[in-house]
């Protein structure tokens, strides 16, 4: 069982967390036309890298989203940071 450090609450059990998605994925602007390919890419194509991955997670008990960098092979957590851009 893994443990993740929530930037707000500290080290907590994995059962309190919810995976949101890969970090840095941009939603196509749907106020204009979006091709099938672009939309399918956004919905279904994930980098799914071996090794260092950067992801968005939610700590469900405090409901805050944060970015986590971890190793998808060793499961080692390399770091977590607040998601908001002005975070110091």
């Amino acid at each position, binding site marked *: 069982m893994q*443990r993740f450090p929530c930037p707000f609450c500290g080290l907590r059990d994995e059962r309190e967390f919810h995976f949101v998605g890969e970090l840095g994925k941009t939603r196509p602007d749907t106020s204009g036309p979006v091709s099938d390919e672009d939309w399918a890419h956004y919905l279904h194509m994930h980098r799914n890298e071996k090794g260092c991955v950067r992801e968005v997670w939610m700590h469900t008990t405090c409901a805050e989203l944060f970015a986590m960098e971890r190793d998808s092979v060793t499961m080692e957590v390399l770091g977590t940071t607040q998601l908001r851009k002005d975070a110091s």
Partner: protein
Amino acid sequence: MTRHAGAAIDASRKLRFTFDGRAYEGVAGDTLASALLANGVRIVGRSFKYHRPRGLWGAWVDKPNAIMEVSLKGSELPNCLATTTTLEDGMEARAVNAWPNARRDIKGGLDLFSRFLTAGFYYKTFIWPDWHLFEPSIRKMAGLGSVSLEHLDDYITDQSHDQCDLLVIGGGPAGLAAARESAEAGRDVVLVDDQELIGGSAYQAPDIEEQYPEDWVTSQRAAIETAGGRILSRTTAYGVYDHQLVALIETRAFGQTPRLTRMRARHALLATGAIDRPVTLPGNDTPGVMSLTAAREYFHRYGVLAGGCAALISNQTDAQTALAPLQAAGLEIQALDPADPDLKIAGARQTTGVTLRDRHIPADLVLTSAGRTPMVHLWRHAGGKLTWSDPLQAFLPDNQLGWMQAIGAANGTFDTDTTLAEARARATGATPPADQPEPIQPLWPRPGAKGRQWIDFQHDVTLKDVELAARENYASVEHLKRYTTLGMASDQGKTSNMAGLAAMATLQGKEIPQVGTTTFRPPFVPVPLAAWAGQHQRQLYHPVKRLALEPQHRDAQAALCEYGGWLRPGWYGAGEADTRIAHEARTARATAGLLDGSPLGKIEVMGPDATAFVNFMFYNTMATLKPGQIRYGFLLTEGGIVYDDGVVSCLGENHFLISCSSSHVDGVRGMLETWRQDGNDPDQIFVHDLTMHWATLTVTGPQARDIVETLGLEADLSSDALPHMRFATSTWNETPMRIARVSFSGDLSFELSLRSSMAPALWDHLMGETKKIGGTLLGIEAMSVLRAEKGYIMVGKDTDGETMPHDLGFTIPRAKKTAPFVGDRSLHTETANDPHRKQLVGLTVPDGAPPLATGAHVVSDAPRRSLGYVTSSYLSPNLDRPVALGLVENGAARLGEEVTIWHDETLSKATITAPCAFDPEGDRLHA
């Protein structure tokens, strides 16, 4: 039989027990196995497939066969391994997989057919016409014991979490030395050992550091505890999981539940020792064939000499020295050349010795070892790599993991003094001196040899089965395992894997490390499932959410059931449920009904960007909503699938209340938070879940207004002032109250929301007024009937994982809404535009026909295939006929069409209609 001195036993305390109905006597400190051995019992079980007699190979966990069903004082447990079950007075043991008993097993005749039961037998034989025809009788034959349900009733285990600086796994010489060194250096040390008497192999040595083994162990133990270290005996580290979690299971007295500990160890030392490998030669499964180490353990720990006259077949150079104390106690030993290809073990039910060409060497015990296999299971669980040691003919941890290191025999270090030096060095973070192990002669199976040579002793996998698997190209060790069941015995290959993969290596002309090992997976020893369940069962499995008004519902004789995670009234009153539900549904339409709708979601969204945000979250346009207005809408996933439905109330400028489904509140809140924080400026939007803070009571029915008017609110409740889909705010008993004209029944309805602490007073008032006019309390079941009469959906019941909003008849936002919203683009893919999509319809049956079964399929006639299915079906008390909803291909265009329904092998007819069956004009709703 006289007992010798044994470190674990107290020979003066006699314990009575039975095995397969016969009475025996053991002593305190015995295991079931050592007591049986002391009584001269040689056959302790039967193998799994051929029911061949099985004796004692090992003395601890390396024992694939002696599995017993044990009962004591009303407790009965299947799958007790005789070698690890501590004997208690009055135990009744029975060999599993043997009937009527292990000595005389009726299925023993199966062995005569063994040439038909070769590798891959199940795959080859039972594939036609259908495995399920054979499964029941095979399962019956295959069982290992039966579970006593009575006993499991209160078999609830404790679980705890713990942490330490250094976890030492194994309390033999290596573990003890390391734990002491580390504890005395001030570290927080925990030592676990799976035996009651810690010390591991220590008792086999004549002395350790010039002390008797017992004294040496006692002094290490005292030193560890004095330095603040903790020692957990009878505790097995059975698995290593992510982030350095080591799972520990502590066994207790028979019948008491084990205890599970999740230990977070910053560092770990693996001192789990090594076990003997069986020698693969003809007849090597005969009772009386025992591992070298087991004979020493039975003697030194339990004071039992396993026989009187032993043949020794081993490539271990120190074997004879090691057996010297047993020899001194009277065991005759004749050593044989282990490499001689003509060795055979003689005897059927019990060994009579060894034959060597025309020579017979009489013996009642054959001690064998083909070398020692370090116990590296936990190392592999942790993700550590193995290296092949040619001198030791064994896989060893490469010790490159960082947080965990192996010491002692688990690391291939067999010499005691070298072990102690290595353990103490590792305990303090130093590098131990390099060990120069004495090489052994390889002693592996010889494919092509004559006679039946056993590799897996529980599953009866022979060398010939491995040869067959290789011929049929099941050559990878993972395929070999599954094809032959090699290593799938309850010892999980501890005794069989090395011989199996060595045989495969020879057959393929490869070296052993080229063939590799199968994956080591937890648990290292069998762990009862109850240990993982812990307290998470029955009411605590998934605790229900409770209503503020639960006492009031109980007073009103509510049948409380779980609905979407909430404990809610299904219906009220004693008597048959169907009658009660029909009565409530009928009365609510005749006069009025009162429903506790408190679980309804109440999520507030506010802040400068709230309007744009809510408009983005919903399929329906919410940006045009004015304060006081309410609008129905859908929340979609980005894939365009309906996730939830609900109403949005505009409380003020940039201030909304989302009433989502009761069971989806947590999910909807998570969805809102995710989009708020990832994709928006979180300082401009705030999301607040008030579901638990506000109670909601719904008054519905033609006389609902009369009831609500008795509250004397200043708000105007008339249809002109407060029409359908509007709300008003007021106060009641000086408490803010919201009155919303929202209806799930299709009748005039008022949803009254106020803070939860005031709910009992409001409930009492409304219940009194409802009763006064002949109205009813309304449970969820009757409400489900009312909404089905109206064709109102329940998301997740009347929708599935493919349903999009236009499938439910809500087409306008898809065509007209220009602002982006979640899932928008997915509503315009080829799949979304498919004319054959399943759409929501109503289904009626011919006069007099019974209600359709929920889940019944609408089918085409030729060729027969499913066109959709029934999602909701009830006998409507108000229409006095069945009503049903369903999802049917292109259903909206097929109104009036007669269709065929298939259910439970029978066909019937139904007609597709609009979903709404009651008051389609909506006059009652707008009253």
